[in-house]
């Protein structure tokens, strides 16, 4: 109860200038780099965010918010976008120009390289795109893309100065972000100083230090022991232990991580939609959230993006119904069904959820064999292999979820959901200029997925952050990966 009060307090009050904040993240060891285009882990993103900017970023509802881009304007057919940059400078004093933007995007899409954002920028025809002024760019797209701003906010699409190369990033990275580079030891720490010339207002903090602590309990202990002021990614249990204690602040970022089981719709037994529906009905979502997420989350409704823009919130909440599930299975001729559920220690809650679902399925006469897989190659193993697996996803716009995972030519279509009509609906949405009309199309797509899709989305996990009591200004309504998450320019030490 006290927590809520504190939290409102932490975002209000008068900011105080000065101090150094130490933030503990899980990291990537000695091979970490500061190249923002290589950003992969949360720690990478947090550091990149402090040093660099994107043209846009996601708001709390995952809609694109302008950042370095002041505004964007499409043409009629939605395949040419005029983007105007705001007045901003890099840490070396040079202005951020259209050339830098084009250089950055070309670097990301370099066919020799394999940067993560490359896939997101795929709709942009960079050869045809050009600078139309010092601070304006015309992006030419390969096809109509109503959701083009999402591309500008894509994971890893940071703007770097023209001609910045790989080696520069580790030694003296120059960005336009709120903090300037001071020092970096891969896998250990990175120290940045306030950028007084930041276009969005200089940060309150003098310095920020990112330290790496892979073990959750180490991050908590460091926080409790006053060795850091901010600890990213805590367990629900830890949160529960300290929420009432008042020693530290617990911040829960709701709706951050979608939790699901993913059924391959192109192969037995899940090529029968009755079986898929039966599985939807087998899940006791509350039990899964309580057991696998220790209660720290919300139940899902087999749809991605609860609380995000375009979310089909009107569909009835699905409940466990074992009788109906059994009947459906019987109808599908899948009594005494046996399936293997792939899981791995790759994400929190995976093995737990698998065990719980196995027991739930047993009540409906389905035998689930839980198979632990290698955590380092899990995602690529489950992309094409197996029939049923544990799945999770960080926050992204619903549109991105659809395009990346549910179209015939999607790169990571783990449910093998390949339907021409569905693809067509997506294209229709992208060519629809009017937002409400577009929302209606998204609604139709989601309804389809709700009734017969391959994602059994049972919950959304909170993203839990711990801070020292002196830390103020931490945004509480920002799912992980959005603009205000892991953002330190608005934070101050009381």
């Amino acid at each position, binding site marked *: 109860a006290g927590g809520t009060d504190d939290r409102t307090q932490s975002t209000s009050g008068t900011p105080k200038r000065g101090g150094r904040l130490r933030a503990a993240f899980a990291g990537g*060891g000695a091979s970490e780099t500061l190249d923002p285009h290589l950003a992969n882990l949360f720690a990478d993103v947090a550091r990149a965010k402090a040093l660099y900017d994107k043209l846009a970023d996601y708001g709390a509802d995952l809609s694109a918010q302008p950042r370095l881009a002041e505004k964007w304007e499409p043409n009629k057919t939605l395949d040419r976008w005029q983007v105007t940059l705001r007045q901003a400078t890099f840490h070396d004093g040079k202005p951020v120009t259209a050339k830098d933007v084009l250089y950055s995007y070309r670097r990301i899409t370099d066919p020799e390289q394999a940067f993560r954002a490359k896939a997101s920028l795929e709709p942009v025809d960079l050869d045809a795109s050009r600078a139309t002024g010092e601070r304006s760019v015309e992006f030419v797209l390969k096809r109509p893309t109503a959701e083009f701003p999402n591309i500008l906010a894509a994971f890893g699409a940071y703007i770097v100065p023209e001609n910045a190369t790989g080696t520069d990033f580790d030694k003296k990275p120059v960005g336009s972000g709120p903090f300037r580079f001071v020092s970096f030891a*891969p896998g250990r720490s990175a120290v940045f100083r306030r950028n007084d010339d930041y276009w969005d207002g200089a940060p309150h903090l003098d310095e920020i230090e990112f330290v790496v602590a*892979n073990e959750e309990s*180490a991050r908590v202990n460091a926080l409790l*022991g006053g060795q850091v002021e901010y600890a990213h990614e805590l367990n629900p249990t830890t949160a529960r232990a300290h929420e009432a204690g008042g020693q530290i602040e617990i911040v829960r970022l709701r709706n951050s991580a979608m939790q699901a089981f993913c059924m391959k719709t192109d192969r037995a037994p899940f090529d029968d939609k009755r079986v898929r529906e039966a599985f939807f009905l087998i899940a006791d979502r509350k039990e899964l959230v309580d057991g696998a997420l220790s209660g720290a989350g919300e139940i899902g409704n087999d749809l991605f993006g609860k609380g995000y823009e375009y979310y089909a919130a009107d569909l009835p909440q699905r409940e466990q119904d074992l009788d109906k599930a059994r009947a459906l299975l019987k109808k599908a001729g899948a009594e005494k069904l046996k399936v293997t559920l792939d899981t791995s220690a790759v994400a929190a809650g995976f093995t737990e959820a698998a065990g719980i679902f196995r027991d739930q399925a047993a009540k409906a006469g389905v035998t689930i064999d839980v198979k632990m897989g290698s955590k380092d*190659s899990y995602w*690529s193993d489950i*992309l094409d292999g197996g029939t049923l697996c544990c799945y999770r996803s960080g926050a992204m716009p619903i549109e991105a979820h659809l395009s990346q995972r549910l179209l015939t030519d999607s790169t*990571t279509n783990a449910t093998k959901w390949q339907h021409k009509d569905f693809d067509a609906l997506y294209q229709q949405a992208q060519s629809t200029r009017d937002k409400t009309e577009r929302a209606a199309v998204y609604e139709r797509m989601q309804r389809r997925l709700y009734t017969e899709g391959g994602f059994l989305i049972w919950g959304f996990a909170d993203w839990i952050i711990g801070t020292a009591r002196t830390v103020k200004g931490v945004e509480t309504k920002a799912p992980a990966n959005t603009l205000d998450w892991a953002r330190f320019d608005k934070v101050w030490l009381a």
Partner: protein
Amino acid sequence: MASGRSFVVRRLLLGAAQTMAVVLLVFALTEALPGDAAVALAGDQPDPARIAAIREAMDLDRPAYERLADWAAGLLHGDFGTSLASGRPVTQYIADGFGPTLLLAALTLALLVPLGFGLGVLAARHEGGLVDRMVSSVTLAVYAVPEFALGVLLVTVLALKLAWLPPTAVGYGTDLLGHPAALVLPVLVLLSRPVCSLSRLVRAGMVDALASPYAAHARRYGVPGARVRYAHALPNALAPAAQQLARTVDWLLCGVIVVEALFVIPGLGTVLLNAVAERDVPVVQGLAVVFGVLTVLLNLGADLVAHRLTPRAGVAA
């Protein structure tokens, strides 16, 4: 001891072969693991085209034996290669990780040897008595508590409740010597298990050695008790303990993953863990060379001790 010298030379030659075998085996194992550096790097975005591109960028599309041969050729010139994940030289990885590891190992060892031998001898002296039961029970109990739980317990009590010590070494980087207080808890946790295994083996050997006629004879002749125990009996009880000690040092230098994670100490264990997770074969290989050489040397050391302490072994029929 000419035979001793030839023994060492032969073992060192064999050691080179062993290290080679270790490297080959480790290479084969890493290669056999599902996924490669490209897959690991792609993480939860396993876009096949991207993976293929990464693979090409990392030269992973070349056959394994070619990569191994290149790497081995580099090694002959003292070049350990560069990391797949970051492009930085492997030697830097090893050098960075070695400092903290060595420091922890040295400190732990400095305490372990007197403690392990002392407790073992003490228990053996009072075999079956209260002291023996106490020493055995306590060390065994501590041994049976997993490192992690022990670490959390110690941190909670000594660092968080009493605030005597820093809970982790986070932010200290490699400069651990500058923060000696941060080393206390890790060393305590590291000590918890080897003290038991070492003292139990010392105890076992010492019970027999102390009961031997030669120990009785020394006692009879008024040789001081401590001298009888440590100079007369202990050498005869030492061989298994020396092996155990070698294993412990091996572990301290290569595998204190839990402690490193719990106290945020960036040592070799962490480097290995990350490298395996990233399928960063050159780094894993570099570590394999280091571990191989270390193990060979440690084993040789332990065998030399055993050799020296059983002088008769060479002449028996």
